[in-house]
């Protein structure tokens, strides 16, 4: 109580000043229409600026949630995009394999069903995760993600950044967490394609620069001009068309048959906070097919 009285005593002059000043301004504002209009406009400006500042603070604290929502939305869009791309490819293959008029007529009834099946049951499933920790300076680099098997994470799920660029793939998961092998790892391999062409190469990291990877075995007929985009194609883990990066420079090998291209990574791996996980639902089927006896029979012969 004593402290309260002391506090009031220490500020009563300030309060009195503010009160008298406010009353005087209020009285002055009512004196003429001009003063009323101008002061009202100024007061609105001040109040508006205050509300704006408060809204800015509120927005700042909502950013984390908005970021997560946006990432989930991006993941859903990625899923839909992959489904439509698969459907588009299927449609192209059906029409390409149907040279006669009769078979076109037959396929015309089957095509919408096939497309609908792909769209209703897409090949890729996505979910989002936050990056708990990561490394970029070791020969083998990893990301620890805050999603595990209970969230639906599986081994060999592709990991891509919020902007849709490759980051790595899941190599191990527990109930609540998972570990992804970074694209910046000497054991990481995937298949890349020169955007807008059919020329493919193998993507790997030479351990030199955490911002660039190499693309080897690119045909000498490709035109790897600096700035051209490289995207995934024909990978078991990654959907087609996921950005890898842009060409920095290219060098023809000693044999003169293939290029080795330096590619600047699109994803900024050192500052990743959230990622999208992509599951290829056909992967188990592909694995079991590859391990089947019939394949072993061909290998033996």
């Amino acid at each position, binding site marked *: 109580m004593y402290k309260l009285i002391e506090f009031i005593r220490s500020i*009563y*002059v300030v309060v*009195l*000043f503010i009160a*008298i*000043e406010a*009353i*005087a*301004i*209020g*009285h*002055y504002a*009512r*004196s*003429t229409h*001009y*003063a009323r209009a*101008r*002061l009202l406009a*100024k007061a609105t400006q001040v109040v508006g600026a205050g509300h704006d500042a408060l809204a800015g603070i509120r927005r700042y604290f909502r950013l984390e949630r908005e970021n997560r929502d946006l990432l989930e939305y991006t993941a859903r869009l990625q899923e839909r995009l992959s489904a439509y791309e698969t459907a588009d490819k299927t449609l192209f293959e059906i029409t390409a394999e149907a040279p006669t008029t009769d078979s076109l007529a037959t396929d015309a009834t089957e095509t919408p069903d096939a497309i609908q099946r792909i769209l209703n049951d897409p090949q890729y499933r996505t979910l989002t995760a936050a990056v708990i920790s990561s490394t970029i300076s070791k020969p083998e680099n990893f990301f620890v993600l805050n999603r595990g098997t209970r969230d639906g994470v599986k081994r060999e799920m592709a990991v891509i950044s919020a902007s849709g660029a490759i980051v790595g793939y899941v190599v191990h998961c527990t109930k609540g967490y998972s570990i992804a092998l970074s694209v910046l790892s000497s054991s990481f391999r995937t298949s890349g394609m020169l955007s807008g062409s059919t020329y493919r190469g193998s993507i790997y990291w030479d351990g030199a620069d955490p911002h660039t990877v190499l693309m080897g075995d690119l045909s000498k007929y490709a035109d790897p001009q600096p700035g051209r985009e490289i995207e995934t194609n024909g990978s078991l883990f990654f959907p087609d068309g996921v950005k890898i990066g842009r060409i920095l420079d290219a060098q023809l090998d000693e044999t003169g048959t293939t290029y080795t291209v330096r590619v600047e990574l699109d994803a900024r791996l050192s500052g990743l906070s959230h990622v999208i996980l992509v599951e290829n639902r056909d992967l188990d089927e592909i694995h079991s097919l590859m391990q089947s006896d019939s394949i072993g029979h061909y290998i033996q012969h």
Partner: protein
Amino acid sequence: MYRTFPYLTLLAATVLVQVYLFDNLSISIYFAPMIYLAYVLLLPLDTSHFALLVAGLCTGWLMDYTMGTDGLNIISTLPVAFLRPWIIAAVYNREDPHEGGIPSTARFGRAKFFRYLVVCVLLHHLIFFSFEALSWVHLHRTLLRIVISSASSVCFLWITARLFTLKLTTRIG
């Protein structure tokens, strides 16, 4: 209360000069000296903060009443009264400016007293003319009014202070 009569005389004299002389001068719209601030500015250094606020309120109200300005003088005089202790502390540069005496050239020195007058007058005129204009459209004119009127006010306040302290020479030191 000691010095009550001299201060009441100062208030009455400055208000009368302001109302009957300066407010009737039509030299220029940029020339509007305000001498009535002398009462607030020349109150003794040991005047309490509350008493300063009351003095500012009374002076402002009296001027609003006589000039018909509906609160404009209170709006501009009250901040001067409220901030006066801090302005004096900044200008006077002593550990305890509340040791008594009248703010004057004899007590502060010419330079410091001049700075004290300039800061207080500029603060007052800035608020007064800004609220009077209530617009940034003719900002350069408002600024010119502030500068010229402040200069003239400081001159007249300096003279007023000299006249006032001449009468109280024995009590200043």
